């Protein structure tokens, strides 16, 4: 790995400042202020339709906020070139879609696209992956236990395998910021725990900023360092897990009864309307 990649990889954080967004008249996000520090796992939680995915799409530069600003390492996202932004932020979608029958290896190599063309002018003109890129892709495939699928067509894999390939694609980039949109839903239990251990390692040992949308409050409670809790497009609470994931807050937002039991939370029944 090149020295400069490690150097710019540490201590990169993201912030949302007064971010607002809406489709037509319908506001989706209002006055969202949130900080996503380096070296921590930040879980974005909230009921369906609370604006989690929209916030993530704004942080990826896919949507532009109608007001407010998103900062990447202190610089406004809009002031950073597409390629530079892409090489700093790795993203894993909830349900990966791929047209045409690319192989797993080709898909994982796509994750290195923002760093393409390092091997010379012809590589740059064609956007070809270099030897660094292939080494990073191979390592990511081993890490996610999909190396044996390298030559298989992505479309033939099961949902969970596809999800692991997509996670490998994001890890291959070795970016300082990692965004995961509900990725554990299609993974089996063993691979869920494996994934959580890996993002914990990436955040805590290697100083990356991990941003993780999830519906699994128990897992968030156990693995996240801090939480941003959204409801109806507003941040209702944020801070360390222990101060946000408490029964009073959760019962109000999720409309469920919460029974804290040891380290985990237990959800018993819906609150009667």
């Amino acid at each position, binding site marked *: 790995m090149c020295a400069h990649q490690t150097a710019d990889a540490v201590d990169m954080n993201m912030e949302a400042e007064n971010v607002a967004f809406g489709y037509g008249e319908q506001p989706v996000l209002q006055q969202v202020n949130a900080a996503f520090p380096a070296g921590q796992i930040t879980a974005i939680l909230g009921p369906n339709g609370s604006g989690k995915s929209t916030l993530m799409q704004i942080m990826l530069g896919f949507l532009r906020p109608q007001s407010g600003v998103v900062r990447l390492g202190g610089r406004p996202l809009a002031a950073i070139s597409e390629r530079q932004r892409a090489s700093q932020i790795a993203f894993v979608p909830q349900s990966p879609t791929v047209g045409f029958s*690319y192989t797993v290896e080709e898909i994982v190599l796509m994750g290195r696209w923002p760093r393409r063309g390092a091997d010379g002018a012809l590589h740059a003109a064609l956007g070809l992956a270099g030897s660094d890129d292939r080494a990073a892709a191979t390592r990511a495939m081993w890490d996610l236990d999909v190396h044996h699928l390298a030559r298989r067509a992505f479309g033939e894999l099961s949902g969970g395998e596809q999800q692991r390939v997509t996670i490998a694609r994001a890890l291959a980039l070795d970016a300082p910021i990692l965004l995961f949109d509900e990725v554990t839903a299609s993974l089996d239990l063993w691979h869920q725990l494996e994934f959580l251990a890996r993002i914990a390692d990436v955040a805590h040992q290697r100083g990356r900023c991990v941003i993780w949308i999830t519906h699994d409050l128990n897992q968030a409670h156990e693995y996240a360092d801090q939480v941003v809790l959204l409801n109806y497009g507003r941040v209702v609470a944020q801070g360390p897990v222990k101060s946000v994931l408490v029964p009073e807050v959760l019962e109000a937002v999720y409309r469920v009864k919460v029974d804290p039991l040891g380290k985990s939370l237990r959800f018993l029944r819906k609150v009667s309307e």
Partner: protein
Amino acid sequence: MIKLNDHDHPIFGYMFYVAAGMLLTTLVLMLCLALGPGLPGHKTISVGISSPAIMSLRMTRVGAAAIVGAALALSGVLLQGLLRNPLADPYVLGISSGGAVGVMVWIVLSSTCGAAILANPWLAELFRYGQTLPALCGSLVACTVVYFLGQRKGQIDPLTLLLAGVVLGAICGGLIMLLQNLVPYGAKTNLLSYLFGYISEGTPTVVLWTGLGVLLAGWGLALNLGGALNIAALSDVEAVSLGVRLGRMRMLAFFCASFLTAGSIALAGPIGFVGLICPHICRMIFGPEHRRLILIAPFVGAIFLMLADTFVRITGSWFAGELPVGVVTALCGGPFFLYLLSRRRVWE
């Protein structure tokens, strides 16, 4: 899927494909040059070198077939990638119908006020190129209209583009029927043979060279877009998150494909199936990676169309007249395409 292991050294892999493609294309070109009636219209088929005059006519025609085939195949790869749809072909966006309207307008004009046009030296010079210019103008107008209709939020949107193209094609179909009622009976056969595509010995040299120039420029641009086209096969959010400027890439791919299609329509009319089948065959053999497809598919297109047109030339004397080459590509290509579909395991 047969694939050269070009993962570790893609550039060498690509160079191999180009060398093999050039070699095969040259061999087929020579074969096609050597075959044909001794004199146009003769029943005997000669094999080998004929008189210089005839060789020059054959060269024009085989060369035009190669350029048109390559352009259509390349356009097909670009449009299938752009629309994320393996069933797209160069005419799906209504460009060919636009060309047909252009030709129709020209036929109407020349049959109603031909004498007045020929009296003006400027217009007469333009009309020397026959249907080439009207077809080019019609196609370019059509792709400009589709480009502006196919946008959402200021950017090309694949689905909107597809719908706009299909609707424009239908409108042009209506226009053609309308204009047909203005044409005297004799001129109608002109249009019918145009609609199936026809490669002519009479193609002016300057048109051929222009076509070759457009093809090479488009090829270079397409190669540059190939990597981004791969990424664009993912969802829009993923592609943007990987740094692809989707709006710009789609605009370039659209115009590249449109100019190639408009050029080939101007040279030979709308020849079907080449742009649909050649990218397909290449994808089944070499996989979906777009840079590889962009390098290989034009050679396959050139070879396919040269062979089809040579068949037309050879069989010209067996029928009442030469078949439009589009008839041959449809009759050979269609069943072959169905065969490929039936063999496929996974729908791409």
